[in-house]
């Protein structure tokens, strides 16, 4: 009999079925031209992230919030950029922006679509994760990894294979259906570094901001804007030879310990006890079909890796294995 093992993992420490309804938009001549379906979670997030401009508090806790920092208290969120530049979320009111003298507004959309959006989602029971995704056959295939891992680049390249983008950089999950993880469509435009445009052939659009070396890009196969279930979460790893393998067992727990800002915002918002934290992670580990995509960070091998992932997505999204 092999020796019994007990291995320590390297980790730190609303129910109800989701429903959708249809919103019928009419063109000026009153003929029905488009039917959109939005889930209650999407509508809530749209409502809660609406932006107005005006005065905001300088603190939610005892001390004033420091530059490039944030505070969360009583369901509210306050983020301070550089100088006299604040973003304040209050439930039912939305996001208020205060632009003081010297505020660098060129990055306002990055703040609003980044930390502010993730905080509002988290405070309202949604789970933002650091991932970019494509859609195929009514389900979402998401790619995650640390900053610079190539999530956006891969999504842009998969667009050339006919796979539309579902989201870039942040994937928001609706946890309200205990039986299924539902993905809310992306709110961010695709952003790529200069070398990624060369790799993917994506059409370059305007620069994101003065201080951020990325440009917006048009997803080659367009975008999907309806809520869809999560099919797979695929981790981007480095290896000598491109390969895709399933992740099983306790590694699912380890893999979800993302060191990204979205995780800290979610944990601060939910204020889980240890047992609630465990139950949350257990649910994700049980319900997320996780895979790893290993490939060399070598431009000469890029197309081989993209073809491998495209084949994986299409075969799994079509019910294959």
């Amino acid at each position, binding site marked *: 009999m092999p020796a019994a093992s*007990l291995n320590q*993992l390297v*980790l730190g420490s609303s129910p109800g079925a989701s429903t959708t309804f249809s919103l019928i938009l009419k063109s000026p001549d009153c003929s029905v031209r488009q039917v959109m379906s939005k889930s209650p979670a999407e509508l809530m997030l749209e409502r809660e992230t609406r932006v107005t401009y005006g005065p905001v508090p300088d603190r939610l806790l005892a001390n004033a919030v420091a530059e490039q920092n944030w505070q969360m208290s009583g369901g509210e969120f306050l983020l301070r950029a550089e100088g006299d530049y604040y973003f304040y979320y209050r439930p039912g009111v939305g996001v208020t922006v205060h632009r003081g003298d010297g505020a660098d507004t060129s990055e306002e959309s990055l703040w609003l679509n980044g930390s502010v959006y993730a905080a509002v989602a988290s405070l309202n029971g949604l789970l933002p994760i650091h991932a970019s995704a494509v859609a195929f056959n009514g389900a979402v295939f998401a790619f995650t990894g640390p900053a610079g891992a190539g999530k956006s680049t891969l999504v842009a390249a998969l667009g050339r294979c006919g796979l539309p983008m579902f989201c870039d950089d942040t994937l928001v999950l609706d946890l309200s259906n205990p039986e299924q993880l539902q993905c809310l469509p992306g709110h961010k435009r695709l952003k790529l570094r200069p070398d990624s445009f060369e790799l993917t052939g994506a059409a370059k659009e305007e620069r994101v901001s003065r201080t951020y070396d990325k440009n917006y890009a048009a997803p080659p196969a367009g975008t999907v804007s309806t809520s869809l279930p999560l099919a797979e979460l695929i981790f981007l790893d480095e290896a000598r030879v491109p390969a895709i393998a399933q992740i099983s*067992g306790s590694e699912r727990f380890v893999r979800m310990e993302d060191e990204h800002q979205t995780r800290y915002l979610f944990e601060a918002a939910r204020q889980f006890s240890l047992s609630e934290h465990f139950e949350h992670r*257990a649910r994700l*580990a049980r319900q997320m079909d996780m895979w790893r995509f290993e490939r060399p960070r070598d431009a000469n091998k890029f197309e081989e890796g993209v073809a491998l992932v495209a084949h994986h997505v299409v075969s799994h999204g079509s019910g294959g294995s």
Partner: protein
Amino acid sequence: MNALTKQRDRFAETDVDDEIVLMRLDNGEFFSMAGTAAATWRLIDGKRDRAGLVAALFETFGGDTAAMAADVDAFLDALREMGLIAID
């Protein structure tokens, strides 16, 4: 007979595929158990003692009883030191 009992107020656990993932509620440490460790953990039911545990494992896995008993002792010691089980 000294039955082995799980101290259920001290941990949370879940099955993930063939493994058991467990977290201590006193400090948040996570552990995984697979293979024979998971089988041993599942056999701790508040009724079996050490000898009953070894017999049940032998029935499932076969092999060298003495080596198995030594492995089980080490495993149970680790669980007891962490406060995850008690011996009545």
